């Protein structure tokens, strides 16, 4: 990825950006301050790029191809799914983040949220995310 990478405005502000949420271990916590369950900020970390590039599934691209939103977890049974709105990521998160398409052979709907991410950035992403599929926890 080069520094010339630009925000792809064909991905509109109302589009969903989907990020898988592991179930083992459970990566959802109860946030007493906002009285709601939400993914931990750790769900918005990327090891390879030191958080600079965060992989997501572009929801509109996925559904336009005839797939259901839930299919973003099809290779990971039991995983949950969190949705961020593109406009929220563009406008409410600092430092500035940009959204790009980055299709791969394995995932033609793959995209990236690109930008430096401090711990606060990742926490804000977690707080802005909506859990649309709750991870399935193993019975103990």
């Amino acid at each position, binding site marked *: 990825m080069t520094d010339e990478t630009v925000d792809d405005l064909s991905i509109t502000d109302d589009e969903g950006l989907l990020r898988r949420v592991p179930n083992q271990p459970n990566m959802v916590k109860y946030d007493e*301050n906002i009285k709601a369950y939400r993914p931990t*900020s*750790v769900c918005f970390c990327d*090891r390879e790029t030191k958080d600079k590039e965060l992989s997501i599934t572009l929801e509109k691209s996925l559904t336009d191809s005839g797939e259901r939103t839930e299919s973003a977890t099809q290779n990971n049974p039991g995983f949950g799914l969190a949705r961020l709105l593109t406009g929220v990521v563009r406008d409410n998160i600092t430092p500035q983040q940009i959204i790009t398409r980055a299709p791969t052979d394995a995932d033609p709907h793959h995209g990236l949220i690109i930008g430096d991410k401090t*711990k606060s950035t990742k926490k804000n992403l977690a707080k802005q995310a909506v859990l649309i599929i709750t991870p399935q926890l193993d019975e103990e």
Partner: protein
Amino acid sequence: MPITNIFEYKNTQNSVDTIDQTPQNIRDVLDELSNLTYLDDNWDSYGASSPSKQALLGSAHIAYEVLRNDTPTPDVFPVPNGNIQFEWSCFNLDIEIEIESQGKCHVCFEDLDSGDNWEKTFTFDLTELSSVISDLTQRSQNEQRVRMVN
């Protein structure tokens, strides 16, 4: 003697072998850490590393160093880079401690009451971090008192 696992670390903290003096909140953290030792690489489906031994032992160390008996138990999560994170989101405080090793952790703090927020890396001096956890503990005690009165 090098410490090679969580249980060995726990034993070094108890002066009497036959009586487990570890507070419940630290025991809960150690149990969570033990569960994380079984994680494989790519546990998040995005290429994560399994937790590193330095991070696991560092987490046990920091739990003993900063948690008081009455401190609320943190949520414990693996971080894709191999670190471990403790989190509290309660009593209008957001505290995240990302532990790299016994000698290094990264802290994100936010007080929703005062608006105070900062990020810092701590090495061996955990005085300021202990102070933050003391504040959290105090708030949890105050809340309990209010509940008892009401």
